[in-house]
């Protein structure tokens, strides 16, 4: 869908993006992650052609990015904003028409979205009369109304209560089912794992890692297992290393790393003879842990 090739961008005083390249597969949800000020918004602005890259290029479905592609994208900026004095319906119609929809098409689609988002009774109200969450919903509708092939959402869940966040989450998943590609920029990791198929992590203007969520997590596996059971766990084998161990009323909880690429069965077998096992689970790092690990690593380096 989108190939970002060696993109750099610098502002007067600092480098915002430093030779960033990655690829966003079609019909997937792509997480663009990074701490504040890493360069996510700069990259998004280049994709949405608000600004241009200094070097490098971006291919949209194999074509070099050009102004015509704009109408095939939808962008929800992190800094939300609508015309305060305009009515909800008019506002949506205006923004949809700016995206090239005809008036009739836009009106029909606005209707169905208004119902989906439970905003029916607010259509005739001015934006300034709406609560912040409702304004966000309106803005979300404005982003996806023209059924863009590429949807870019910058922190889409900020400002939503859990119920509305779920509503938006469902809509995002539905949009993917319908064939849209979604770029999802955030520094909150909770939502990433349940939504994203692929991610790229940007830190300090540089891409530090990218790929499918599963592959990344697997690559951060350290052959570590969580064990719980009854008895007293005493591991005295050179094949294993106990990273953490706690005992409580005769029950234990431990994190064990298996060395030398041994199979977990070796550990199990070893333990079965000595303690009663209640749980045994591979410990795969969460994206959050990977994120923190990668970011702090870079800082220390």
């Amino acid at each position, binding site marked *: 869908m989108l190939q970002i090739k060696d993109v750099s961008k610098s502002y*007067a005083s600092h480098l915002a993006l430093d030779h960033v390249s990655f690829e966003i597969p079609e019909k997937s949800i792509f997480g663009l992650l990074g701490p504040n000020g890493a360069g996510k918004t700069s990259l998004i*602005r280049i994709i*949405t*052609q*608000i*600004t*241009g890259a*200094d070097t490098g290029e971006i291919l949209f479905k194999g074509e070099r990015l050009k*102004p015509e592609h*704009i*109408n095939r*994208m939808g*962008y929800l*900026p992190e*800094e*939300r*904003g*609508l*015309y*305060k*004095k*305009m009515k909800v319906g008019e506002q949506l119609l*205006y*923004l949809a*028409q*700016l*995206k090239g929809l005809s008036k009739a098409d836009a009106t029909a689609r606005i209707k169905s979205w208004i119902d989906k988002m439970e905003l029916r009774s607010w259509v005739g109200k001015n934006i300034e009369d709406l609560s912040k969450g409702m304004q966000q919903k309106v*803005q979300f509708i*404005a*982003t996806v109304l023209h059924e863009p092939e590429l949807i870019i959402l910058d922190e889409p869940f900020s400002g939503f209560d859990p119920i509305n966040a779920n509503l938006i989450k469902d809509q995002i998943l539905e949009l993917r089912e319908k064939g849209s590609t979604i770029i999802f920029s955030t520094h909150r990791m909770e939502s990433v794992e349940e939504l994203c198929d692929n991610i790229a992590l940007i830190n300090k203007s540089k891409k530090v890692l990218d790929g499918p969520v599963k592959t990344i997590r697997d690559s951060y596996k350290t052959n570590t297992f969580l064990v719980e059971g009854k008895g007293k766990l005493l591991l005295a084998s050179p094949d294993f290393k106990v990273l953490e161990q706690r005992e409580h009323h005769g029950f234990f909880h431990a994190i064990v790393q298996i060395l030398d690429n041994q199979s977990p069965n070796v550990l199990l077998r070893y333990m079965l003879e000595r303690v009663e096992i209640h749980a045994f689970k591979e410990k795969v790092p969460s994206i959050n842990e990977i994120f923190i690990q990668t970011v702090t690593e870079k800082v220390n380096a």
Partner: protein
Amino acid sequence: MHKIWLIVQREYLTRVRKKSFIIMTFVGPLLMAAMIIVPVWLATVSSDGEETIEVLDESGFFAGKLQDKGELKFHYVQEPLETAKKRVTENENSSLLYIPKLDLDNPQGIKLFSQENTSLSTQLNLERMLKSEIEEQKFARSGVDKAVLDKIKTDIDINTVNLKDGDEKSSNAAVTSGAGYVGAILIYMFIFIYGVQIMRGVIEEKTNRIVEVVISSVKPFQLMMGKILGIAAVGLTQFLLWITLSFAVVTLLSSRFQTDRFSDKQISQTMETMQDAGQAEKAQEMNKIMSALDNLNVPLLLGCFLFYFLGGYLLYGALFGAIGSAVDNETDTQQFMLPITIPLIMSFIVAQTVIMKNPDGPVAFWMSIIPFTSPISMMLRLPFGVPGWQLALSMALLVLGFIGTVWLAGRIYRVGILMYGKKVNYRELSKWLFYKG
């Protein structure tokens, strides 16, 4: 193009539908009409009825000579000054004109006693009447026949005629400059009122962050252009409504006042019937103004007015937009407003002095050629006749100037609208101009 049109529509409709716009549209003409009518009305109201003047004439020169005139009624009395004074103090509406024994060559000691302050017009009236009466007496004394003197008295009135282009046009410096002046004032007001609206609009979009959404759909240039054109349309609508409504209100209210008394026929009638030659003179002057108005090249003036009106507005509108995009809120605009307002105000001040005095001089020439001052300066020069090549040059430069400022503003706008929380100075601005897109 289609998108610019959409933006124009939005800018136009949201503004036109605002309550303040509707209120101003209706209140504006009322205010304007009031400005025209209230002074007239006040003038008719303020004359407060008859004033009786008792004349105690000890000199004997004026016996029976002071005729009642307008609201002044004369009443001759013969009694000692003290009793007359006492009586006047008891009566509010009368005053006492005391004329002692006079030396005609040095008339001194004439006094007017009244309970209230005498109005200046009454005083002037009396002085004039006494003066002419004394003059008559002096003529009589020196043996000059008043009729002969009246014959000698001559009235000179120069009709200025403009010989340009072969045909004679009667012109009138006051009228010509007046026409230009009105046009210049309108341009000046329009640029300021609606230029600032552009600036506010940009700041508003910037502060409520809508701009990022819009900019991801349209180019900054389109957004700025749509805004400038949309607000121009709002301004034009308001002006047209004002003109129409004011005209209606004035016509309606002044239908009671005789406004056609300046027509030619009326004037000759007035001349015949009116004893007072001053009135007739006034009417004739008015007639001259009317004919000078007729002889102004109205289509040219109007066409040029529209051109400079729009050209000036667009030129400055782009700059106002650029200012709006460079700042975060209106209080920060001051330092950038100054360089924009200076040429405008300067052309206005210089206009009143240099251009009006010498509409073909070098200052007038240069100011009407340079785009920043030309909309106002050229309007002032136009009624006096401007060579075609100067007009063409000025217009061409204004168009170029407009393209230039829009380009300039577009560069600033593009960077500025996404720049938050940063106080911008001129050095910063000049850097923005050369940022790569």
